[in-house]
């Protein structure tokens, strides 16, 4: 059930984004009670003055894995700078490269993301690029040594779920590094679906943060993620158009000799 990723063994395959949370104090409970281990944190939101009671750094458990996020970067140069600063202030070498190509759908700029990934892998980061689901790009990223790819399921915050299944499956099937579905997952059933497809993990922010109870919603997602993963590991039955009689009956029908 556990996942080796970025040099770390992770049990809970639900990663949580923090940007839209109504209250950072819920992070500690998610870590302690739900065993959520990976939290994505935008560098642009980190208040450098720890202990000011408003800095997210004061709310992140020491043992939790911080994935710094370069959101706000408009090109690879800015993303690289943000990543370097993020590593310095959080001591974490996990970086989610997020370079927005535009702000309405929040679609990532794949070209710039590839350039930033190349540089940051060389700089010794564990690189997690957030990408538009493009298999060719995912293969290039795999070649340069990123730790995982993070294709979107649908636009960030859209709650539309897995809206481009064929494209995501191609990536899951064809590359050997972990695939984390990032963005667009709105309901636990979407998360379960992502895991059933063979995704290695999901990253969720909006659906948890904007729910009536972020902690309980994180719990629901966590359960869905484990259920989906377990089913994937066992092997899901094939869907077919007609009912298939279970075997004792089939034996009687097919096995009868003339």
């Amino acid at each position, binding site marked *: 059930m556990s996942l080796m990723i970025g040099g770390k063994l992770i049990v809970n395959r639900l990663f949580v984004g923090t940007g839209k949370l*109504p209250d*950072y104090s819920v992070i500690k409970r998610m870590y302690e009670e739900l065993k959520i281990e990976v939290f994505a944190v935008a560098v*642009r939101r980190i*208040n450098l003055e720890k202990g000011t009671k408003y800095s997210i750094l004061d709310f992140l458990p020491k043992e939790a894995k911080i994935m710094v996020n370069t959101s706000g970067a*408009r090109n690879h140069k800015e993303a690289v700078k*943000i990543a370097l*600063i993020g590593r310095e202030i959080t001591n974490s070498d996990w970086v989610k490269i997020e370079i927005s190509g535009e*702000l309405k759908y929040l679609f990532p700029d794949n070209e710039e993301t590839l350039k930033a990934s190349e540089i940051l892998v060389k700089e010794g980061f564990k690189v997690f690029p957030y990408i538009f689901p493009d298999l060719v790009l995912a293969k290039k990223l795999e070649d340069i040594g990123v730790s995982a790819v993070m294709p979107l399921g649908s636009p960030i915050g859209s*709650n539309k779920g897995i809206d481009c299944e064929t494209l995501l499956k191609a990536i899951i099937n064809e590359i050997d590094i972990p695939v984390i579905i990032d963005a667009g997952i709105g309901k636990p059933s979407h998360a379960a679906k992502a895991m059933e497809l063979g995704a290695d993990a999901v990253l969720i922010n909006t659906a948890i943060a904007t729910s009536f109870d972020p902690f309980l919603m994180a719990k629901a997602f966590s359960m869905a993620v484990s259920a989906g993963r377990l089913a994937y590991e066992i092997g899901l039955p094939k869907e077919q158009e007609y009912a298939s009689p279970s075997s004792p009956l089939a034996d009687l029908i097919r096995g009868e000799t003339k």
Partner: protein
Amino acid sequence: MIERILEEADKLLKDKDQRNNIEDILTKEKLSPKDFLSLILDDDDNNLFIMAEISKKITERYFGKVINLFTPLYLSNFCICGCSYCGFSMENKNLKRIKLNTEEIIKEFESIKSHGIDSILLLTGCDRINTPFEYILSGVRIAKDMFSEVVIEVYSLEEEEYRILATNGLTGVTLYQETYNKEVYKKLHPYGPKKDYYYRLYTQERALRAGVKEVTLGVLLGLNDPIEDVFKMVLHAEYLLKKFPNAEISISFPRFRPAGTNFKEAFKVTDKMLLRFIFSTRIYLKNVGITLSTRETPKLRDALIGYGITKMSAGSKTSVGGYAKDYSSGNQFENEDRRSVEEIVEVIRNKGYRPEFTNWIGGLIV
């Protein structure tokens, strides 16, 4: 070109009696300018409730359960413009004119920072002699080392000047057109650099081309027919969003407040109208930031948390300085919400939102 869009807007405004059905508009994925105009012209309370709920959902989706906080600091009140509605107008002969020096600026910054504020808005009047570009640059440079977000609201600058500021830590430019009606604009801005309507109109574009990351537009509600001004401003914002897809565009809806002048507003904008403008804008431009200042009452500000607003000023003074030292310099306008940063933080938390202080969108990477 924005001018062509504003001409199209005039045509739609002429036929404003032909409106689209509100129920249809509210179920649409993509709205037209005419849809937006129909929304701001609507006067049905039930629709307004529905629009509020839609706004809430859209705001949560794009911005989360978060309200960004900032504090404005007036560096100077020197001004060579004669804008009749403004407390800093050159016509206001009784106003004590002052500008803060470096030492005073640092003291004010320290005082503002002591409340946890990490985003600063620096303001001056319109005066290149008393507050030249170098003065603004120096303010930005000092601010950059103390705040994650540094925004200016000063006179309209040249593109090259914005470039220099952006490479020295400036993240944003706020500049209000005040009114988009050229005739009214001309009347209200009789002399001084602000007189030039078109130079001002293209300010945001100059700033964005120069690498500034965020711009805020605004009209001073009450100067002109608010429907015309809000309609044109929102189309202006839409135009900027399309032209600069990576830039963060915000809109502000300041209502005219008494400013120690004899000016009387030409149009009264009620609370309900303001709400309708905010919700309609949120529904039309889903990812635009919306700022609400301390001009508005605590009651209205508190009620709007979650409903379209993304950014609020807190603990604001509208005279020069005033945080570390009271210079008794007179206000640009009167504040309605005089609560402290700590009080605003408490209100936001109690509403189930997180006050956000930090936004290093440019400061970290220049």
